[in-house]
C-alpha cells in the first residue's frame, strides 16, 4: 500500500510543532501516521450526503459561566513550576522573531 504521508510532510509538521526528530523517528512516524490515515480513510466508505457536519461530539451547546471573578493563583504559585524565572516573570530563551499576531 502506498504511504499516505511522506517524510517531507512529517518533517514539516515536526518543525511546526517544534519537535526535533531523529532520522529513525521520522521513518517510524511516517509509517505510523500513514497507518492512522488509512484507518480514518475507512470513514469515507460511509455515505454522508445528508449528514450535517459535526462541530462537537457532545449534544450540548451554550455552556457558560457567569462573569464573576475567581481568585487567581498569584505570582508565586504561578511561577512555582517554571523551569526558569526572572523576578515576577517567566524567563524564556530570547524571542528573535516576533512578526506574528494573536
Amino acid at each position, binding site marked *: 500500500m502506498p504511504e499516505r504521508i511522506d517524510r517531507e510532510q512529517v518533517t*514539516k509538521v515536526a*518543525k*511546526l510543532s*517544534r519537535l526535533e526528530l531523529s532520522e529513525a523517528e521520522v521513518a517510524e512516524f511516517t509509517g505510523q501516521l500513514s497507518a492512522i490515515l488509512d484507518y480514518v480513510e475507512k470513514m469515507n466508505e460511509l455515505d454522508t450526503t445528508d449528514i450535517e457536519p459535526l*462541530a*462537537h*461530539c*457532545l449534544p*450540548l*451547546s*451554550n*455552556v*457558560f*459561566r*457567569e*462573569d*464573576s*471573578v*475567581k*481568585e*487567581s*493563583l*498569584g*505570582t508565586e504559585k*504561578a*511561577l512555582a513550576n517554571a523551569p*526558569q524565572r*526572572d*523576578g*515576577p*516573570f*517567566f*524567563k*524564556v*530563551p*530570547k*524571542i528573535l*522573531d*516576533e*512578526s*506574528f*499576531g*494573536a
Partner: protein
Amino acid sequence: MEDLAYKVMVGLEIHVQLCTRTKMFCGCALGFGEDANSRVCPVCLGMPGVLPVMNKEAVEYAVLAALALNCEIAEFTKWDRKSYYYPDLPKNYQISQYDLPLGANGFIEIASGSGQTKRIRITRAHLEEDAGKNLHTAGDFSQVDLNRTGTPLLEIVTEPDMSSAAEVRALAVELQRMVRYLGVSEADMQKGHMRFEPNINLVVTKDGAEYKTPIVEVKNLNSFRALERSVDFEIGRQLGEFAETGETMQMGNKSTRGWDDAKEVTVLQREKEEAHDYRYFPEPDLVPVELKGRWLKDVRAGLCELPLKKQMRFVSEYGLSEYDAGVLTAERSTAEFFDEAVKAGGDAKRVCNVLTQVGLKLANEKDCSIVELGIESEGVAQLCGMVEAGDISASASAQVFEQMAETGKKPDVLARELNLIQKSDAGELEAIVNKVLAENAQAVEDVAGGGKKSKKARGFLLGQVMQKTEGQANPKVVSEILDSKLG
C-alpha cells in the same frame, strides 16, 4: 518620476478588548498594570487537564457589537484552535473562531464630510482570546507576563473599502465611539484596548491600464495617529516602488511591515515561511454556541441609537453645527443628557452652548463627565429658559451652572441668591431711563446730533442705566426703551 493616477484601497483588521470583569475562559480578573503573572490560573496558564468555560458576558458583548455593525448573526457558531508557538500563549494554540464566526456580512457608516456618510463593509466579527506579553528588554533572554493571556477580544475585519488615510482614521474613531456607546469596551488606546492592522494597496492607472500594487499589512498599531500616518506613508512608498519596479499584486507577494513610530516609516518584517500555517481545527474542549430566540432578542435589546446617527440627528433635528454635534456625541451620557435637556424644553442651541462652553469645561476640571456633575437635565432646560426669557444674562448663566453643580440647587433659586436676576419690568426700567436722560442732557443732545458721537453717547446712556440698576437691568429691554425715547 511621472505623475501616476491611483486609487487607495485599505481594509482593516481591528482587535477590541471587551470590558468584562473576567477573562474569556477562566475567572481571572482583567486588569492593567498589576504585578506580572498575578492574574493567572491553571486555565490561562495552559496547564494540562484543565477545561475552559465560556464567559457568557463576553459572548453577549461580542454579539451586541456585531449587531451594531449590522452583521448577520450566526445561529450556530463554534470555537477553533489556531496553532501558535510563542510563550505568551502557553497552550501553544489560541482559541479563536475560524469557519463559523459569530457575525458576518455587516457594515459600518463613517462620516465622510459635509453631512455625508460612507458605508464600509464588515467581512466578519469573531471572538478570541488575547495572548500575554513578551518583554525583550532585560538581557539575553525574554520575560513573559501572562496577565493578559485569555482576555476576550473581538476581532473585526473590514473589506478594503477605505480610500484614504483619513477614512481609515474615521472608521477607527467611529468604532471607538460605537463600542463605548454599547458599553462593551472601554476602548482606551493607552491601555491597548484597540489594535489595528491595515491592509493597504493601490490601483495605479498607467497608459490606460490598471495595475494593483502588492498588498502590505502593517502590524500592531495602537494609536489613531500611527494608524493614519502609516497608511499615508505606505501610499507614498508603494507609489514610488511601483514607479521603480512595476511590481504588481500576485499570489504570495503580500508582505508584512511594522511601524517605526520615531522615524515615521514602515519597516519590512521578515516572516518565517510557515508563519501563516495556523492549522485550525475544531476546539474539542468547548461546545458550540447557538444564538437565537429569546437570548438573541435580549442581547439585541442592548442596542442604542448609534453615535453617528445621533450626531446627524442633532444637526438635522436641532440645527446644531457638525462640530457641536460631534462634541456632544463623543460620549453617550453627554449626548443623552443634551437630548433630555432639549426634550425638557431647553432651546437646543442654548443648551448646546451651556454644555459645550461651561459644562464640558467644568467636567474637565473635575475630571468627570457632564452627567457626573450632578445636575439634572431639567435644571439645564430651566436655566436656558431663564436666559431665553431675559431673567438672567447669558454670561450669568455660566455662574449659575457652576453653582448648580456645586450646591445642587435649582437655577431660579441660585439666580436670586446670587443677585443675578435681570430687571426686565418695562415700567420700572422706564422710570430709571427717564431719570438718566434728565441727568444727562448733553448726551441726549449728542445722540440727536447723529454721526459717530451719537453712537458713543447712546452707549454712555445705556451704561448709566446699567450702573443705576447695578448691572441687573436686561440690556435688551433697556435698549428698546432708549430707542423709543431717543427716536
